[in-house]
């Protein structure tokens, strides 16, 4: 953290150049090079700065808050792992590096949601979030896979951000480029809890308040925004994609606001309010107002972190407020079409616009069906043990979403990978 804070002024003094550092080559063949790469520009600067500040604040806060809590060390280890993953993402110079951080983020998210692992709901909701995240991961992997086809190499964000060549590639390989862009948008929408994937965010508020604050109030949910900003030069060429991002952002902000209005619990209210603001940030990114988006991100992250940290205070504050300012409600409105629409919208918002139900009918159920159809492979061909375990865990997490002890966790997390 000190490193980040010290580095940023130096970088500002040097007229904020865009930096690219190629560090470790993991695999090399005559045709292909697989390497870890780092990159630094103003988006990275803002995200890294926010990450450092907020993590610092939350760690200090938690030092007292978590005192004598079972899993004290586990909490801080996970939090630090999260910080590493976050920094890997924001400093990454290519998709491969970003993906490593992305995975660490997903795993640590899951670990902190299921922090109270002896209770049913945290583990269940942990798996729910994990299954959403895996979907995002798959999209990202597909985007990477397609971009390997497109460029026949590990492309860095430095090259990706050169407008002319990218435009040329986009025009020449329209289908592949569209595919990559859509996958990126889906991954970003999932990670930032945009529609229709928004239901995981309020369910994620299972861990200690401090971890909810840093993950779901601020840093983790804004990673989708980061991904969009990082890849903007690529998909920004195409109005269809821009339109898609704007549509997702607009729908999310409007519907999430409606849902936020009916929430009667503090944390879920903050979660939906935050989703609505992130929807606006998506629109800003798509329209090219990147500086505004960065400011909006910083403001939203700070505000929601603070609100979540003080969320237990809301009780005494609002009860007092009510005590002094309560006004009984006016009389009944007359029946009208408007009232009908309003009451319908109320029920719909209370049911979170049925997104959970729709997703389970149109997404998870088909997945389950495919899974069942493929189960013959395991039975008859006796595929490698690795595949079998990974499949079983897949089934465990995505399909069943049942309570499970976290003993299998490490094997589980890595074995779900390839699916």
């Amino acid at each position: 953290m000190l490193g980040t804070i010290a580095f940023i002024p130096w970088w500002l003094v040097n007229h904020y150049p865009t930096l690219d550092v190629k560090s470790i080559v993991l695999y090399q063949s005559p045709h292909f090079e697989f390497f870890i790469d780092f990159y630094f520009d103003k988006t990275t600067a803002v995200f890294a700065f926010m990450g450092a500040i907020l993590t610092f604040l939350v760690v200090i806060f938690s030092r007292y808050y978590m005192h004598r809590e079972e899993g004290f060390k586990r909490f801080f280890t996970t939090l630090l792992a999260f910080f590493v993953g976050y920094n890997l993402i924001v400093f990454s110079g290519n998709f491969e590096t970003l993906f490593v951080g992305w995975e660490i983020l997903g795993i640590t998210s899951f670990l902190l949601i299921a922090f109270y692992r002896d209770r049913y709901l945290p583990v269940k909701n942990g798996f729910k979030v994990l299954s959403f995240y895996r979907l995002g991961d798959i999209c990202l992997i597909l985007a990477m896979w397609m971009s390997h086809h497109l460029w026949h190499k590990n492309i860095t964000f430095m090259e990706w951000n050169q407008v002319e060549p990218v435009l040329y590639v986009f025009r020449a390989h329209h289908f592949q480029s569209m595919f990559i862009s859509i996958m990126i948008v889906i991954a970003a929408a999932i990670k930032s809890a945009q529609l229709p994937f928004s239901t995981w965010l309020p369910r994620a508020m299972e861990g200690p308040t401090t971890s909810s604050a840093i993950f779901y109030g601020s840093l983790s949910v804004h990673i989708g925004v980061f991904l969009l900003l990082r890849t903007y030069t690529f998909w920004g060429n195409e109005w269809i994609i821009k339109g898609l991002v704007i549509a997702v952002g607009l729908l999310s902000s409007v519907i999430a606001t409606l849902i936020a209005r009916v929430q009667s619990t503090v944390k879920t209210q903050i979660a939906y309010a935050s989703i609505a603001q992130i929807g606006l940030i998506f629109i800003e990114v798509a329209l090219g107002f990147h500086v505004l988006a960065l400011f909006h991100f910083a403001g939203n992250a700070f505000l929601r972190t603070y609100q979540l940290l003080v969320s237990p205070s809301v009780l005494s504050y609002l009860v007092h407020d009510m005590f002094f300012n309560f006004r009984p409600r006016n009389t009944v409105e007359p029946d009208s079409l408007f009232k009908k629409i309003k009451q319908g919208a109320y029920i719909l918002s209370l049911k979170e616009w049925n997104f959970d139900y729709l997703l389970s009918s149109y997404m998870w159920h088909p997945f389950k069906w495919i899974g069942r159809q493929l189960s013959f492979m395991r039975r008859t061909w006796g595929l490698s043990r690795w595949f079998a375990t990974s499949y079983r865990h897949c089934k465990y997490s995505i399909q069943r979403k049942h309570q499970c002890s976290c003993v299998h966790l490490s094997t589980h997390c890595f074995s779900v990978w390839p699916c």
Partner: protein
Amino acid sequence: MDTLVQPLLFRVLCSYLDQGISLWKFPGNDVGFLAALKELERNGFTSFFKTQRARNLLLQDKLKISDLLGRVVGDERYFEQYLFDQQFSHQGWSGIVSAIEDKPEALLDSRKISLRELIIFELLLEIDALEAQLGKGWQPLSTRVNTPPQNLFAEVEATELQEVFSLWQNAFEWDYYDAVLAGIGKREQLLHPATIANSFQAIFCIDERECSLRRHIEHVDPSCQTLGAPGFFGVEFFFQPENGQFYEKLCPAPVTPAYLIKEFGASTHRKKVLLFSNKTHTLLPGFVITLTLGFWAAVETFLTLFRPKMSPAISDAFAHMNNDAELSIENKNPDDRENGLQIGFTVEEMTTRVEGQLRGMGLIKNFAPIVYVIAHGSSSANNPHHGAHDCGACSGRPGSVNARVFAHMANHPGVRAGLKSNGIDIPVETQFIGGLHDTAADEMAYFDTRILTTENFGLHRKNVAAFELALDLNAKERSRRFASISSKMHIRKIRKAIKNRSVSLFEPRPELGHGTNTLCIVGRRDLTKGLFLDRRAFLNSYDYRTDLKGKLLPGIMRPLGPVCGGINLEYYFSRVDNYKLGAGTKLPHNVMGLFGVANSSDGDLRPGLPVQMIEVHDPMRLLIIVEHFPEVVLKTIQSAPEMYEWFINEWVHLVVLNPETKQFYYFKAGAFVPYNPLTRHTAVVQDFHMLIETANEMETNQIANATQENLPVFTLN
């Protein structure tokens, strides 16, 4: 089925009962739960249900639980057990619904709801879930059940295991009780003539957190006298702060007062915090706020971490009443009423209350120049359970108004005259002063000091200095149980650290509340003076010599069960099963609708106390020790069945100390049997500071470890 039904059920319930979190209120929540649901179903173009069948059922008139059970369960013999299982799978929500049904005024913005309505709606949701999952034509659940239904009300068989548990529990309790009784017995032998207080007298709440402060103030100023009485000081009323839209009850919960005290002329008013405004949760105002106040939130977070200070978001014990505001204490015209309550007390009513209070404590002569009436409250930040830290005798609120009202009454010339004619002669020089002790911050405030005579004001300044020293010592004594404060630091630094705790948002243990409470001693202070009871004793002043026939005793003993015993059992049950009977750890708590906490968005409401409040507590029943003759006490407790049940059912233990023979008697199965303590020796401690600095600290909050933090009974020199 629970996972399909409960999330929506809880969300609908919470929205219906919500007191002010959501921006969009439940439409039509003033007509009753089912009626409002019906109205919504009929009007809206969407439905709560997935299938038409459940929706049609809801819209029917005269829904009966048994009909719905017939559809879901089938066989009538299983109905009872099914309902039991269903409701106890979310005891928090069922509990609050039934509590609101019994007492709708428990919510400020009251709601009509009944357990019956909850069950009907839940059964409808279950029908809906079954229909959606299984399609039409599913069979009732009991068709697949082979085991015979259980009789829920069958006698529970006594087992050897239970006997063992009961033996353990008694051994655990009497191990401590015995040491206490030995300590008191020993003091009885060296009892010296009671000192006559000439500097001041101070009346505290019986609360066990004041036990240590009383010991310290007596140590700092040996010529003072301290007394204990339930913290509403015998004056029961509703209080309406200036601009308040509601009344607050300031007396024990079972009492319903007929008086109202209003505040007016306050100089300061509550401030608003923009960051708490619900505008931040809307779209466009939220957009503007995130871009502006969002950055202020960062500054706020920094400040709360590194410079914690009081703010309107923190519950402040001293803000309960405005010190400089006027109170409508005296009623001059009986027609002066509001909503069926008389505003203020008449002089006769005041006299009765002051006399009752003074006689109960045995304070009828030897008045010092100043008599302090010190209520207590607690300030804490980020703490939905803050009410549990305030005064139990004031319905979980700070007792500042009661202290001020009592002092005002006792200073009233008319009251003084009335008291004199009844035989209590308070000298003209004696003045009563109300005060408030913040048990979390260890700070004290005094009210209406401007009425003091010049002479008394000089004395008061000296006494305040003595109180400050006592508060320092008290803070030091408390610090030994806080891992983040070293008791070896300079005493002033400890005091500062203690104060900071009460305003720190990151501090889940601003204070430890009633944790460790185990004793309740009704008698003269001389029984326990100088005895180190480790802040575990409720101390109620009572002098048997002024009440040989025990006429006042029922009035004193009646509240002990519900107030002290109630507190004790709340801690007991939260401690023995924190998962089911307590609230678990408070860190993941989510505030639901301003009336409860749950662990997450879809969770059940949590009853009881969080682990942070009970980890220092040893699960022991309360031991009430009364200094009087056994036959008088027996007559007293048998005078009212609601009092007797506490003792005969052994919800609390009772020991009587015969003041003449110095013999202890233990109440067992309806009679008193002599008891002789086994402990022979009570250690004497010379150095209080040494004792606190070298005391054990628990390694973990597991009970076998935690109990080692308690100090034995000592005599302090």
